[in-house]
């Protein structure tokens, strides 16, 4: 493992060093899945055709390794010129340390707002400067197997009461009501975001991810308690902790589970013949609170402070911001473009967009809104609660100790 990392670092450093000599643009990307990787390459090729004097190199690193390596790239004197990253806290924590280059002036329309919805500016900025170029975003929702719902004659649940009723019916039919691939603990992060914001409201949820509310608070206990209750009633699929997110998804594709709280990318892994029988609905209303929040993780790009070729990097950023470049990336992948001039790619995305526009507030995702360590421990806690709901209080007490330490800095 370490050797692999070392080789990757060596290659990247060597690549960056080489770039220093000529007009080369080095992009480090985490888009390692086949579809996004190829689509991004097309965007790069189009930029290359417009700028023949710049030689563009894309270094692709697997997602998890990328997250581990990024801090060392940003602090390196041989930093890449452009890197992929996430909007929100995860970007801001780098900006706070002075490791990013502001990109206020690169927007082709003259300002951030000329290209993107105003709501995106907050998660893309720190202290009044824009550091992040949003590219695509997607939504999280409750995905479900339409065939299972049709077979059992179920309709879409709008409230928690209706949700519990259909869970019971599904369970009685010998099908797991809720799929979750808890081996990838981030799948529990969606439950944290949606349950806590549904029960306590978006503002309270933001306070929690900022570390301002104890995890032992009665409000948090209540929302985690709902998750524990679903587990006590046996609504989560058995052996969830042994399934990766894709494995759990295929359980739902096969009709052995009915619902899965997941990001839009679940469609990427659905086989062609079941794609059309998978649909989504909005997370149900809890405790009569009709205002809701949605997870809308936004992916994009930043320029490291130590980038060698900032001029080319900014040119590339300006191109990435255009409707043309955003459409070229988002349309084939069925994601929503950040640029507001890009048309919605399909009917699915239109419904996703409507759901987001109807929301009172948007979240990036637990592990993007909170420090990674806090999110990792929080997601572990939810997995523990699902596995062992009786331990709720013990788990939350331990989690809050971590909160106190992590936010103390």
């Amino acid at each position: 493992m370490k050797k692999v990392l070392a080789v990757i670092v060596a290659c990247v450093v060597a690549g960056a060093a080489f770039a220093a000599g000529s007009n080369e643009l080095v992009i480090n990307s985490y888009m390692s899945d086949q579809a996004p990787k190829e689509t991004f390459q097309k965007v790069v090729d189009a930029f290359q055709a417009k700028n023949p004097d710049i030689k563009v190199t894309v270094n692709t690193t697997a997602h998890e390794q990328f997250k581990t390596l990024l801090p060392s790239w940003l602090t390196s004197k041989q930093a890449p010129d452009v890197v992929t990253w996430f909007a929100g806290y995860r970007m801001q924590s780098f900006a706070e340390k002075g490791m990013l280059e502001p990109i206020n002036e690169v927007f082709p329309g003259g300002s951030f707002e000329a290209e993107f919805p105003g709501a995106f500016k907050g998660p893309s900025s720190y202290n009044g400067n824009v550091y992040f170029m949003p590219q695509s975003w997607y939504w999280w929702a409750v995905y479900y197997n339409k065939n299972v719902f049709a077979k059992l004659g179920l309709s879409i649940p709008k409230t928690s009461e209706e949700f519990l009723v259909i869970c019971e019916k599904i369970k009685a039919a010998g099908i797991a009501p809720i799929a979750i691939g808890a081996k990838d603990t981030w799948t529990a992060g969606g439950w944290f975001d949606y349950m806590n914001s549904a029960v306590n409201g978006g503002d309270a949820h933001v306070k929690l991810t900022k570390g301002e509310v104890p995890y032992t608070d009665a409000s948090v206990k209540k929302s985690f308690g709902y998750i524990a209750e679903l587990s006590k009633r046996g609504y989560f699929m058995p052996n969830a902790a042994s399934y990766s997110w894709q494995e759990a998804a295929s359980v739902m594709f096969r009709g052995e589970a009915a619902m899965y709280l997941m990001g839009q990318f679940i469609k990427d892994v659905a086989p062609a013949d079941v794609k059309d029988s998978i649909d989504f609905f909005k997370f149900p209303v809890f405790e009569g609170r009709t205002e809701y929040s949605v997870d809308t993780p936004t992916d994009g790009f930043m320029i490291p402070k130590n980038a060698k070729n900032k001029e080319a990097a900014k040119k590339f950023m300006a191109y990435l911001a255009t409707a043309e470049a955003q459409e070229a990336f988002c349309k084939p992948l069925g994601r929503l473009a950040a640029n507001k001039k890009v048309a919605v790619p399909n009917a699915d995305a239109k419904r996703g967009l409507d759901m987001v526009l109807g929301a009172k507030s948007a979240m990036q995702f637990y592990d993007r809104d909170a420090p990674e360590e806090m999110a990792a421990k929080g997601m572990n806690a939810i997995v523990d609660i699902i596995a062992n709901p009786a331990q709720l209080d013990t788990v939350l007490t331990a989690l809050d100790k971590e909160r106190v330490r992590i936010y103390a800095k």
Partner: protein
Amino acid sequence: MTLKKDKLLPWAFLALPLAMYLIWVILPVFQSLLFSLTHRDTIMYGRKFIGLGNFVRLVQDPQFHIALANNLVWLVFFVGIPIPLGLGIAMLFNQEYPGARLYKTLFYVPMTLSFAVIGTIWAWIYHPDFGALNTVLRLLGLEGATRQWLGDKRYMTLALVFVGVWRQVPYVMILYLAGLKNVPEELVEAAMIDGASWGQRFRHVVIPMLAPATVVAVTISVIDSLRAFDIVYVMTNTKARAAEVLASYMYSSAFHYQDYGYGSAIAVVQFAITFAFIVAYVNNTLKNELQR
């Protein structure tokens, strides 16, 4: 003049490897020691010393206690099982009979696979719903014995240790097979003529002659158990708090959470424990060398 040259020449040859060893091995050890006394962001964003703060946190950290206890489990099983089992298999293969070579090779196969491959395969075997282990148990009518091997806190570490042991046994076997080649035939025959039974020959001739091989096998198993990481990382996604060992906890603290100071502190503890065993081993080897 010649004397001086004789003394200098080896050092001239050693200079480059020694310098590399100093820079890439010895220096980082001391750097880790230094980092372990600093605040989380130290390596990346400027140094801030906090004394023994990280070590105080270690003492109070329940997750660290779990990792330490798990390493102890690894150690006990890594010494307790592969040594006698490896010796037994080696004794079995030390005789000539048809197919001995084939069996030897088959036993050695796990050693040729990387931990990543082994971990992936065993993660499938352990899968509660479609894995081989639970499937076999169900076929035998032992539904009650099926477990969520890698998802249930209680079985995780043992399930992982088993895989490690499975790979360690052939390693120890090879060490003992080599050792057995050094046991002089005449010595065993002499004991036979003196009327020693098989058990007596084994106990009083073979075992003592195998002492050097045993020292190597035990030391290597101890060190391997302390640096257990690959299997834990591959099979549990490193998010398995219950199966965490020192190396994996060090990795996630330093590289996932960017808490380099704390990660270094864990590394220092791991180093200290391993170092104690290495000193004992080197001490033992040197003593034997000097006796000869």
